[in-house]
């Protein structure tokens, strides 16, 4: 029995040491300052405690779908021409709500089967269905659509990470967020003025070079009037950047792009022939070939450089262009630097929209830590003192268990790299309050058994045995709540769920095992029949 007890004590001390290392690590310096420094290294503070910016943004995945289906339209046109299949029109009826839907009308009955087979051949990601009056509806397969959207989100995360890294923000978090609404969570510790970061993240830098088919027009209406109110189906109206008091001008631009940002190999800030800031880009081999083919066949036509759906520049194609070009358009030096940086980091596959923005200034974070720690110390002290008064010697037992509980909880935070948030600190405080529940349950039961006339060893035995099931039940219910909180919660709230549930797990060990060992140790030193202080 005594030997057994010795082993248990050693086990407890080993666990204690293990988690103390979890809290402090192995400090470089054995002084108060050194300990605090390594504590700061190991316990990661949440944004609400150290200050920073928290953003939730949504990838406009329909942009990516539209790009894909626009390309599909172009391919259908080219192939139909090559196979001599006639059709009356090919349109996307609603690019906003159903960006993947393409409608082809007026396909002669005799070419129907030919048409169907070449679509399913050439566009394996699309389904084709017949509709009344010789028309066909082509939509993307649900699986391909979901894949495309998922890829757009992943690509956006990569691109945003590249851009933020190049800004030198330390330890940013960039990850998918929420339950499938194409949302991304971005956390930027130490950034309490997010304007510039947001601008750089947000610029889709969707670069497209397209044919300009008409313009400039002073207003959108003027452009529409010029075409009798109906635009050619393969063209759209795009504005220029507005400058000063003048509103934007409008151009009629073809929907299909000659080259896009994906064909870029590099970009750099530079100067145009008049010495104004400009961005020079060069194209990949494949992109260069596409661009050469396009410019070769469109000499004399107008070419538009489009950035994020705004016309930057329109120029006449004087000669075939191969693989370098220049973008100008009233930039400042800083703007050309930023633009070439985002072009290099890769274009966002789709636009992004901000859904949520929170910033916490560093002074508020520091105040929160102070208040949280103060509340924790006062709450804990109140509980420890009360237990001493109410249970006397057994109170020491409970207090040791509680302190050990706290050490294990903090050590776990150190080891797991979980983040400590302000609600997380509240979770630590609550763990103290709820953890002491187990001790009270056991002690009250031991008192009852003693009153019923049992000897101290048997009362302790019975007390622990009876209380055990109840303790498991109460812990399970709280941990179930905490797990649900973790699943549905975000950021600070998750920190709370983590500390609370781990604190309660640790409590099973401290209140039941450690307390029991201490009781056994006290009992082993007592004479038979001596009373237990409880």
């Amino acid at each position: 029995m005594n030997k057994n007890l010795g082993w248990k004590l050693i086990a407890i001390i080993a666990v204690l040491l293990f988690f103390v290392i979890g809290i402090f690590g192995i400090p470089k310096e054995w002084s108060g300052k050194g300990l605090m420094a390594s504590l700061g290294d190991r316990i990661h503070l949440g944004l609400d405690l150290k200050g920073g910016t928290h953003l939730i943004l949504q990838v406009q995945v329909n942009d990516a779908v539209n790009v894909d289906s626009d390309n599909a339209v172009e391919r259908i046109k080219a192939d139909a021409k090559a196979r001599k299949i006639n059709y009356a029109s090919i349109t996307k009826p609603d690019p906003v709500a159903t960006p993947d839907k393409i409608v082809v009308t007026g396909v002669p009955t005799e070419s129907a089967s030919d048409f169907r087979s070449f679509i399913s051949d050439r566009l394996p990601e699309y389904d084709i269905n017949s509709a009344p009056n010789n028309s066909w509806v082509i939509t993307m397969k649900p699986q391909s659509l979901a894949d495309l959207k998922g890829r757009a989100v992943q690509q956006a995360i990569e691109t945003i990470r590249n851009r933020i890294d190049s800004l030198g923000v330390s330890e940013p978090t960039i990850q998918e967020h929420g339950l499938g609404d194409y949302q991304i969570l971005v956390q930027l510790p130490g950034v309490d003025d997010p304007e510039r970061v947001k601008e750089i993240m947000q610029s889709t830098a969707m670069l497209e070079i397209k044919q300009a088919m008409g313009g400039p027009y002073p207003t959108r209406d003027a452009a529409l009037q010029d075409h009798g109110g109906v635009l050619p189906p393969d063209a759209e109206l795009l504005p220029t950047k507005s400058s000063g008091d003048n509103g934007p001008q409008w151009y009629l631009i073809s929907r299909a792009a000659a080259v896009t940002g994906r064909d870029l190999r590099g970009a750099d800030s530079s100067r145009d022939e008049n010495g104004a800031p400009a961005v020079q880009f060069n194209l990949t081999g494949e992109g260069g070939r596409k661009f050469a083919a396009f410019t070769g066949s469109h000499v004399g036509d107008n070419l538009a450089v489009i950035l994020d759906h705004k016309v930057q520049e329109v120029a006449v194609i004087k000669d075939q262009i191969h693989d370098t070009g220049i973008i100008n358009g009233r930039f400042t030096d800083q703007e050309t630097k930023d633009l070439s940086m985002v072009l290099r980091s890769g274009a966002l596959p789709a636009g992004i929209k901000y859904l949520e923005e929170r910033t916490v200034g560093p002074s508020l974070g520091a105040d929160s830590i102070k208040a949280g720690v103060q509340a924790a110390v006062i709450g804990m002290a109140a509980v420890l003192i009360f237990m001493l008064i109410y249970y006397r010697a057994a109170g020491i037992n409970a207090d040791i268990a509680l302190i050990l509980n706290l050490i294990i909880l903090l050590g776990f935070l150190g080891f797991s790299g979980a983040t400590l948030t302000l609600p997380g600190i509240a979770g630590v405080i609550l763990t103290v309050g709820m953890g002491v529940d187990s001790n009270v349950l056991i002690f009250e039961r031991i008192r009852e058994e003693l009153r019923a006339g049992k000897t101290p060893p048997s009362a302790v035995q019975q007390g622990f045995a009876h209380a055990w099931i109840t303790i498991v039940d109460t812990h399970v219910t709280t941990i179930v709540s905490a797990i649900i909180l973790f699943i549905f919660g975000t950021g600070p709230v998750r920190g709370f769920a983590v500390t609370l549930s781990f604190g309660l797990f640790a409590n099973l060990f401290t209140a039941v095992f450690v307390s029991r060992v201490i009781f056994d140790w006290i009992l082993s030193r007592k004479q038979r029949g001596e009373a237990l202080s409880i």
Partner: protein
Amino acid sequence: MEFFRDANIDFLGKKWYFLAFSLVFSIAGIASMLFWHGIPLGVDFRGGTLVYVKFSHTPNDNAIRAAMDKVGLHNPRIQDYGEPGRNEVLIDLPVQETNEQALDQGKLQIINALQSNVVPGKEDFNNASLLTIANYLNQKDPLHLSTDSAQKYPDIAKALIDYRNKTKGGVIASLDELKAVADPAVVSSLNDGFYLSDYGVYQVEIVGPQVGKQLQTQAKLAVVYSLLGMLVYLAFRFELIYGIAAVITVFHDTLITVGFFSLTNKPISLTVIAAILTLVGYSNNDTIVVFDRIRENLKLMRRESLADVVNRSINQTLSRTILTAGLTFLTVLALYLFGGEVLHGFSFALVIGILIGTYSSIAIAAPILVAYQEWRSKKGKGSGTLGGSKLAANEAKSIKSGRTTQVPSKVSAGR
């Protein structure tokens, strides 16, 4: 020391008083939700823009309102925030003025409206970021460091910002104050590029309508799932009726807690929901302790009526119930009093919830069991059902797995 030794209170006899008490609070809460304050939602759920501003002087709400009006923000809620004397103000724009397309437009408008002492061509030091100041110093190079300036100036900028934020709480009144932490040459260079407004923005929360709705749905789901989780667990551990009684009890606690938020018109934020979910678990603790004892006593006291067994069980666990509730309450009270403004709603929910949760495990959960029992016997299905076969079977199981009474006594006999 011991409270409630040999307590013998007839709790079930007072069930009508309890019912009246619960009804008064529930109905007051529901009435307030329906006809008075509604359910006051925090910015997390309703969406909107909150900008927390600290002034260098006592803020004048009317002047702020007038400034907002000038930039076209007509309905901001302006509220003094935090401890008095810290000159902190919360400016709250409703979600209607939060633009879907440009989420931070409201924030920028507020900042524009508040600007004072503007010097054209200079920047406001009280709202300048670390990056801006470091860049500025790098360009001006007041210490003529030339070569290692790229390393030194960010550190100097950090010291300046820390002084502003940590020592001065966010706003300074004169750039000369910075001489405490920086070389006079740096300060005089700052004087060329910066002016001082009378405020600093120290926290911003902007939630678009879409996220707000999503969070509302999630919060509701989370509460429903945790109630269901409790029901399933208790039905599995005890009997379905115990689970139902516990869930009704917890629902009662949640309702009254939310009612208190409505009555006092305190906004319900994400952390408040976290507190409520915690209460769902915590309030069940007390209920389970009482139920456990009822189950144990049903086996020991086969001849007595269920009401007597329940009464006795409540009295036996009373000391523990009051004690642990009191201790948890102590910690939560510390949180409420000293935990700071950010956690105010969270700790308020816990303070109310723990009081109600403890009361209800005695006053609501157990009487439901007895009422169910009486209803069953009136229907003539016999009286023994609650303590009957299924419970006995449960006990048998636990004895076999060695977790209750009998086994440990065998062990001690063996020693």
